[in-house]
Every structure is written in C-alpha cells, then in structure tokens.
C-alpha cells in the first residue's frame, strides 16, 4: 500500500505549553486510519495544522509522496485532495439538500447562472452513487434525520473532492458520530467502507473504541502531545488501545458493587431522580445525598453533560424528581425559576454566555439572585449590595476584591469564583455543576474545589458533570459513568484517579472489562451494558425502559 499522507516530527507550542511534540502520522491509500487520544492529547491541534489553521513550529508533510510546505495556507488542504467533516457537520438546516451540496461551488462563484433542474439531477446522482438515493434533494436539511444529515455531510465532502479529480482523496472525519443515535450507525460505516473501496482514505477521529474496532484498519494514538503508538487494529484489543491512550498497564477493572448497602445507612436522599430522559439521556436513575459530591461523566455525546440541565429545567426532559420527603415532581414541569425557588442552584459551563454578564459589575452579578434581601423599604440599598459583594469576594478569594469592577475585567478563575459565590451564598439544597473549573488556572481551581467541598460540608448535595477526570478525581465521592444515555458504571471515592476514570470511560461503550476480548462483534447486535441488565442494581431499573 502507498502512503497517502505522511507527517513527520510535527511540533507546536502555545506559549510555554507543548501541544504537539515530534508527532509522526502516516495514512495509507485505501485505509481507515483511527486517530485516538484523550482531551488535550493534541488531536485537534494536529487537525488544525492540516486545515491550515495553526502554524506548526517544526515538522514535515508529504502528500502522495510529494512534499508540501508547512504551514499550509488556510484552505490549501483542498488542493491537496483533503476534506474535513466536523462534528457540527457544517450544513445549513434551512436550505435544501441540493443547495447544501453545491454550497462550496456557490461560494467559489464559478457559475454565472444556476440551472436547478440539472443541479437536482446531479445531486440525486451523487447521493445514489453512495447508496443514499432515498434522500429527496428538494427536502429541507432540517427535515432529515440526524443520521441522514451526517451521511449528507460526508457525501458532500467526498463529492467536492471528486469535482477536483483526485483519484485518492483523504477524508478527515472529526468525531462525526459523537452525537448520533446508535441505531443505524452501520449505514455510516457502510458509506465509509464504500468510499475506501473506491480509493479514498479516511482519517477517523473518535473516542469510541467500538467504532475503532469496527471500522479502522490502523490507529495512531496521541498522549500529552506525543506519539503514544501506532497499531494495526486487527492485531490489538480494546485493552491494548486503552493502555495506549491512558498510558499505563491496565489493572483489572473489577466492576464494583454500587454502594447500595451504604445508601440505606445514609438516610433519606436529598434528590431522587427516576427515569430521566432528554435529548441524549435515555433513562437515568440516581440518588443524591446531602453532603456528597456525585460526579457524572462519559464520552462526548453520551449525554452526561445534559444531566444538570435536565435537573434544573433549562432543557426539556422527562422523568420524575423528588426532593427530600416532598411530593415527586415531573421533570417536564421543572423550570429554572421553579428550581431556584426549590433551592436548586446551577453553575453552567459556558461562563460568558450562561454564567455571568461580563459587562456588568461584580456586585451586580453576585447579587442578581438575592436582590430581595437587599431591599430597605421598596428600594435597594447600594451599601448592602456592595458590602455583601465585598464580603463574598473575601470569602471566595476573589482577586482583586473590587465589587464595582466589570466582571469581565477579572481573570477567568476569579470570574468563576464570583459565579460560584452567586449561588453558594444561598446555601442551595442541591448544587448542580457543569465543568465547574473549565479554563481556570491552577490556583483558582484549588480554591473552587475548596468552595465546592465546603458547600457539601455545609449540607448541600452536589452533582458535578464533567469530562475533566482530574477535576472529578479531586472532587467526587461517587462517580457515575454514562454511555449511550444510561448509567453503566458507578465508581467510589477510593477508585477515583484520573487514569482510572479514563479507563472506565474509554471502555464504557464496550463490554465490561472482563469481556473486552469479545468486544469486536458488530455494533448494535451484541448486548449493551446498561443499568437495566447489570444485576447489581435491580432497584435502579424500574424507571428505565425503552
């Protein structure tokens, strides 16, 4: 087999941090090549170098044996016969299938005049060529299923390359499957196999080992910006891949009994959730106790990041929640306003958009949920607002502690402390966190951890959704691992380390560790691990049927 794409010694630093350190990667003609690695391993930096978005410090690139000068100009990848399909797919939902297929040509402005009849005929032909004849070219993209949209995005990328007459194009698929439903994913695999059979190569970025084993010929694994190894998939196991990704020998992943016995000893749960469903969450039951920090994690698209939103009522969902001994409530009827009244607090992950308003002052932001307490007669007391803000700033180590400053002029870590203070001053019964220390410096991170643990000590029940395993290991008393919208494993405090969590998450879509060797069977046919069929948790299965 010829080498289609060859990268050697690629390095890239941002400030002092080395994102890529002498990485090699080669993709052969006619193969599906997996690119694996945890968050921050350097995968996206490598893709951005290929897309001409980042300038590498060092490294060489050759395409079909011809050296190509680095850095690539933005968009130059197309002349080299490469195309990218990203997770967001880049389709315009309001336009038709046909319009989406020809959008690149419209942008290039080649044509003087559009002949719609022939455009539709060509679009139909292109879809049929890839076995997608059933898609109507006049249909609005928004009316297609998620899976059809993903297929359409891939077909569009390939067809754009075809027009340039590349006999051996390279298609880069950047986690296009993360948010797709599992049903029918075989169709996407078929499409990719068909492309490869006709001479294309595919660089496939994913977190899902099932998909790697199902689809890839070889894999390259990155770890901390370095090349961790290259492997032929047929000659390795999921265990072997996990070891490459996480970087240590895999200890036996004994499936622990969920702490059912101790649950009873802890008395009444603060929050009981049954049959929680949302867009990705597909039947989660959980119990959250006062004084504990419960983590929720999983792969991208598993649905874990949706859990706090569903419990706060900020995204539509189904199921029931029960607070202490109060009557059960339908999740459908939960709204943020109601949740706040019930003593539920939520620190969202997207601070500039969801958490706080940077243009307004620290005092404005930190007091926005407690304004009624600062009234003297009908009017707000400025002094009371300012004093409270200053006192909270001191308590949460906000620096500089200047309540009149615009929030946006503080560092990210200090802004997040203000958002945390805004909710913790209310001593919430339930504190929901979504990636609470994302993009925060080390010292602020410590202080935020202290604030969260402090809230738990004072009796809040804390639920933390995160994909940052270090954060989870530092914070959590228990950890639920979510795959395909269900809880598949529960880890306890003494099992929580960054590597350990990574292993569990990476294998969460496959069989339990003991069965990993058999994991190579086709997707969607073998039994799935879920809370329903794990014998340890019979009590958890009631709300979850599908």
């Amino acid at each position, binding site marked *: 087999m010829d080498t289609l794409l060859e990268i050697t010694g690629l390095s890239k630093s941002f400030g002092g941090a080395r994102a890529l350190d002498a990485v090699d990667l080669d993709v052969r003609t006619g193969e599906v090549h997996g690119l694996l690695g945890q968050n921050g391993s350097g995968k996206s930096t490598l893709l951005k170098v290929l897309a001409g978005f980042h300038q590498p410090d060092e490294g060489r690139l050759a395409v079909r044996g011809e050296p190509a000068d680095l850095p690539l100009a933005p968009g130059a990848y197309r002349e080299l016969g490469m195309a990218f399909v990203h997770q967001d797919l880049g389709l315009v939902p309001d336009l038709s299938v046909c319009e989406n297929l020809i959008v690149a040509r419209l942008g290039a402005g080649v044509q003087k005049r559009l002949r719609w009849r022939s455009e539709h005929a060509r679009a139909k032909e292109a879809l049929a060529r890839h076995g997608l004849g059933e898609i109507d070219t006049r249909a609005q993209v928004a009316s297609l299923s998620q899976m059809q949209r993903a297929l359409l995005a891939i077909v569009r990328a390939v067809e754009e390359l075809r027009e340039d007459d590349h006999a051996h194009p390279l298609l880069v698929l950047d986690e296009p499957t993360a948010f797709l439903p599992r049903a029918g994913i075989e169709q996407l695999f078929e499409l990719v196999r068909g492309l490869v059979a006709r001479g294309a190569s595919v660089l496939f970025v994913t977190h899902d080992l099932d998909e790697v084993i199902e689809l890839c010929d070889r894999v390259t694994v990155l770890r901390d910006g370095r090349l961790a190894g290259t492997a032929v998939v047929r000659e390795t196991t999921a265990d072997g891949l996990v070891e490459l990704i996480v970087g240590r020998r895999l200890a036996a992943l004994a499936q622990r009994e969920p702490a059912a016995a101790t649950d009873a000893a802890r008395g009444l749960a603060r929050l009981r959730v049954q049959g929680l469903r949302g867009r990705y969450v597909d039947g989660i039951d959980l119990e959250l106790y006062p004084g504990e920090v419960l983590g929720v994690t999983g792969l991208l698209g598993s649905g874990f990041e949706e859990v706090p939103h569903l419990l*706060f009522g*900020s995204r539509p969902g189904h199921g029931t929640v029960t607070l202490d001994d109060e009557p059960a409530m339908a999740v459908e009827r939960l709204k*943020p*306003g*109601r*949740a*706040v*009244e019930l003593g539920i607090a*939520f620190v*969202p992950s997207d601070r*500039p*958009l*969801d*958490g*706080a*308003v*940077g*243009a*307004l*002052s620290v*005092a*404005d932001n930190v007091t*926005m*949920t407690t*304004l*009624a307490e600062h*009234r003297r007669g*009908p*009017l*707000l007391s*400025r*002094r009371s*607002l*300012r004093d409270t803000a200053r006192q909270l700033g001191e308590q949460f180590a906000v620096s500089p502690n*200047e*309540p*009149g*400053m*615009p*929030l*946006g*002029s*503080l*560092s*990210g870590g200090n*802004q997040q402390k203000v958002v945390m203070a*805004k909710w913790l001053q209310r001593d919430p019964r339930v504190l929901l966190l979504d990636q609470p220390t994302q993009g925060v410096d080390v010292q602020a991170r410590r202080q935020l951890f202290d604030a969260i643990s402090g809230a738990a000590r004072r009796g809040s029940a804390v639920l933390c959704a995160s994909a940052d395993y270090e954060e989870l290991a530092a914070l959590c008393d228990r950890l639920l691992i979510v795959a395909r919208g269900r809880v598949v494993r529960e880890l306890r405090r003494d099992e929580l380390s960054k590597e350990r969590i990574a292993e569990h998450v990476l294998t969460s879509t496959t069989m339990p560790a003991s069965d990993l060797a058999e994991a190579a069977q086709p997707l969607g046919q073998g039994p799935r691990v879920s809370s329903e069929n794990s014998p340890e948790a019979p009590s958890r299965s009631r709300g979850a049927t599908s």
Partner: protein
Amino acid sequence: MSTTQTDTRSAIGRRPAISPAALLERSGLVIAWIAAIALFGILSPDTFLSSANFSTIFGSQAVLAVLALALLVPLTAGDYDLSIAGVLSLSSMIVAVLNAKHGVPLGIAILAALGAGLLVGAVNGAFAALFGVDPFIVTLGTGTLLQGLVLWLSSSETISGVSDTLSNAVITDRFLGISLGFWYGIVLCVVMWVVFEYTPLGRRLLFVGRGRRVAALSGFNLRRLRWGALATSGLIAAFAGVLYAGVTGGADPSSGASFLLPAYAAAFLGATAIVPGRFNPWGAVIAVYFLVTGITGLTILGAASWVQDVFYGTALVLAVSLSTWSRRRSGAAAADA
C-alpha cells in the same frame, strides 16, 4: 491610615475611582449641549438666547423626551419597540376625538388614551414574549396598523378644540419659568432612574437585556419581564401622546411618525453619556434637548426644513456607533478573560 482608605472608598461609592477621561466621557453630552448653546448664542444672540425660545424648546419637546423614555424600558430589556410612534398618534387622536368631537370629559378621554396605549403594549408583549416572535417585526406591524387606525378614527383630518385645561396643564402653566410639560418629563425620568437603579425589578430588566441566557439560568421569569417592559412602553408612549394633544391643542393623524427616529436617536445618544454603555433616562433626556437645540439653532440660522431629517438621521447613526463602541469597550475585558 487604613481607616482613611476605607472612608475614601465608601465616599466614592460602588465604582472605583473615576479617571478624568471617564468623567469626560460621562459628561461629554452635557458639554456638547452647552457648546451648541454657546455657538448658536454667539451666531444669533437675539433670537436664540431669548427666554421665550428656551421655554418653547423645553415645553414642546417634553413630548419627545417622554417618548424616548418610553423606548428605554424595552431597550433595557433587549427588545425594540417600533410601535411607540403609532401609539403616540393613537393616544393624541383618542383624546382629541373623545374630548373635542364627542364632548367626553377630559379626564376620561385621557384615561381611555392611556388604556389604549397599555393595551397595544400588552399585545406587542404577548407576541414577543409569549409567542416568541421578534418584537422588531411585531412592533413594526402594530405601529403601521395603528397609523391606519388613526387615519380611520380621524377621517384623515386634523382635529382641534381639545379643552384648554390640557394645554394649560402642559404648555401654558409654568413652574420656575418653564412649561409644566417639561417637569412631567423630569418626574418620569426620576422615577425611571430610581426603578432602574434601585429596585430589584430594574436590575432584573438590565440582566434580561444584557445577558438573556444568564437571566434565564438564574431563574428570572423572562416572559413576564419582557412582556411587562413592552406593555410599559405602550403606556408611557400613550402619555407622550396626551402631552402632544396638550401642546398642539388637538391631534393630526400623521404627527407620530416624525417622532420615531428622534426618539431612537435620543435613546442611543443618551447611552453614550452619564452611564456610558447603558441606556439611561438622564442621558436620554439630555440627548433630546441637545438634538432639539441643534435643530432649533439651525432653523433660526435659516436652514431649510429638510435639515431636520438629515440632522436626526446623522445623529442616530453616530449615536448607535458611539454606544456600540462604548459597550464593546466595557465588554472587551470580558472577551479577553
């Protein structure tokens, strides 16, 4: 030593020490206004500086000041209201038709006008906040609809003969030498300033306008706040219409349209002053009088009537650019972090 520091801080208040540059920015509009008065005063001392001229400016332009204040409420909550001019026309026409044509007592006619404004605002709010339709489009539609309704009500004729009581109360009677109409605007301005700055409601509106998702995720009732803001702007715009009936002693069916653009120009120009980067009532009122001073001065100097449109149009574009710039600057730090 430390006590002195603390004292200084609390004396300064919530904001950190104000730099000379910031002070200049805050008072820029006032300075520009004084400069404009001085300029026209030098160029045309006899006419422009006469006290009669000033009283006219302050009294008659109270209509525009009140209309600009009406606009501030939904603008603060992040929504446009383009129907305020239509509400003004409708309200003045209701007063004129009921009182002058049908002899309905003035008080009842005014109440009917205010009620109509509130109703229009509530309908706007229902479409925008409850059904999620873009308020810009909704109010463009209702504003046009109202203009048509006013033409029908008035049979396309100017109606005069509204009870003198109204024009006395707005323009003839004076306090400290200035028509009462001006003082109504000032009272409204004070009330709005207190509500915006010193009540939980005002603070919530500000968050709804500046960070709608933050407000939603903090448990604010967005629908009610946005609905209330649009309903309030309808009510206050109707009040501006009542003042207009007092200033002119009647109503003409096409009067409102000429107020829409100046009101927006004043609201945005006002957002560059006093509290730069934020819609604020004092800024809006000062902006109204600054703009009117400019127009009056130019007219006295003999400018043709088309100058008015050119002046207001230019002012709106400049004001929006300036306030966008000053907002971006106050938000720039947020983007950096």
